């Protein structure tokens, strides 16, 4: 049994009259955010290969990728800042930066367009997978991981084919191969 006392909190209350407030006067005073804070998603659009893996991994479906137009759109108010797209990107062009999206009256989204580069146009995503016949085990992992379904691997007949029209050069197959039998080559 604890004993009973009176006026236990008085000393703290009188001290609080003279202490400065514990809160930050935001938004009039600036706030320091820590480095790891998951505030909003930013992209280095030059490195993006529009493979669409980030859009597939978003739990709230806030990202839209248009391969033909070369745009990457994120709906800022649907994004829940989970960081799933950052982990999924094979080229590591997505980052979480600190600072939250400002409140607004309508739901806005941000679109980033890939820079139209005359020399590189038509050459982006040009690198296609090439298989090393000695190392390949026909385990079909590359075909399962391909986001565009461009690989056909047949275990029984020992064939490996890539559909160059569908392939976008994201190199997920090269990353997934357990024997490192795929490398990317131009042409």
């Amino acid at each position, binding site marked *: 049994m604890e004993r009973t*006392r009176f006026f*236990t909190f008085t000393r*703290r209350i009188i001290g609080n009259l003279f202490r400065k407030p514990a809160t930050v006067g935001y938004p009039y005073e600036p706030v320091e955010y820590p480095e*790891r804070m*998951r505030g909003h998603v930013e992209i280095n659009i030059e490195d993006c290969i529009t493979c669409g893996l980030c859009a597939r991994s978003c739990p709230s479906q806030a990202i839209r990728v248009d391969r033909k137009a070369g745009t990457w759109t994120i709906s800022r108010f649907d994004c829940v800042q989970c960081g799933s797209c950052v982990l999924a990107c094979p080229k590591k062009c997505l980052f979480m930066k600190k600072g939250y999206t400002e409140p607004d009256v309508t739901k806005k989204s941000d679109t980033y367009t890939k820079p139209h580069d005359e020399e590189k146009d038509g050459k982006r995503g040009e690198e296609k997978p090439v298989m090393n016949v000695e190392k390949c085990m026909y385990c079909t992992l590359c075909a399962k991981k391909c986001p565009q379904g461009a690989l056909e691997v047949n275990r029984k007949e020992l064939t490996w084919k890539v559909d160059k029209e569908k392939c976008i050069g994201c190199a997920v197959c090269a990353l997934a191969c357990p024997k490192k039998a795929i490398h990317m080559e131009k042409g």
Partner: protein
Amino acid sequence: MAKRSIVPFGPQHPVLPEPVHLDLVLEDETVVGAIPSIGYIHRGLEKLVEKRDFKQYPYVAERICGICSCGHGLGYCMAVEEIMNIQVPDRANYLRTIWVEMSRIHSHLLWLGLLADAMGFESLFMESWRLREKILDMFDETTGGRIIHSVNQVGGVQKDMDSTMLNDILSAIKDIESQLKPIINTFLQDYTVQSRLKGAGVLSREDAISLGAVGPMLRASGEPYDVRMLGYGAYKDLSVEPIISTDCDSYARCEVRLKELLQSFELIREAIGKIPDGPISVPVKGNPAGEYFVRIEQPRGEAIYYVKANGTKYLDRFRLRTPTTSNIPPMVEMLKGCQLADVPILILTIDPCVSCTER
């Protein structure tokens, strides 16, 4: 013969923190019976597991509730890892345990503030929440988010904490502990607090066990049941003891939660002292098939996670039985015989978290 009347209580009420509705049957000022009613924030999140990849679902699972979010992500990932027979590295277990214990500290400080507010003691409520801000700042620094952490993934954790961050956690805890003394003294020894809490809402040990109470409600009635003794995560290497009290009233529940707060400080210090080096996650191959039940100790009690998988990347069923679902029947029993003015305090002593209950 006294006149009976029915008074609706909640879901909008100045002192009630959670949207639960009770129809109180009153005789003059004494409550004779209560009928609970929930369903104001049902989102059907368990249905979403059939449409989201099992590796994406931790992000949904931890958004079921804001206060218990670290535990929900942990429980789901543990269930899937058991089905797929994945061994999580030791360092990941220790990191998960440190984050879950910090989540327990933050939840108990939140509850203490709400209890003080329900009694009308607003400056004590502000002081408790001022201390809670220090833990939220630590979460922001180490995981990236104040309430929703997004660090658990199937196979381990996503982010590592180096020794500077661990030392920051230790100094934050030392700071909080030294400033917690006047608050503990007020909660346990002040005359007004004692006269509101002592003798209110008595739940005997037999009633608590037969009605299915869990967590601090069960431990305050004298039954030593703490799921951390099962040894999941890093708890098998740490010294955990269930904290019990035999008084069975609201004052005992307040005492149990305060002592658990102090125990969490010791557990975090011990875990940071013993944390091993190594990888923080293992790669996950294939799809799960099978079913499993996982029990973990959330700040509010024992939570059970059931996962059923059928071999594709979408799961068949995910069910989460939260501690508040089990604590509502004993709460209804406890309300019989109390005064109308005590009803908000008794509802708060079960630590309700209705967004978990309704998912």
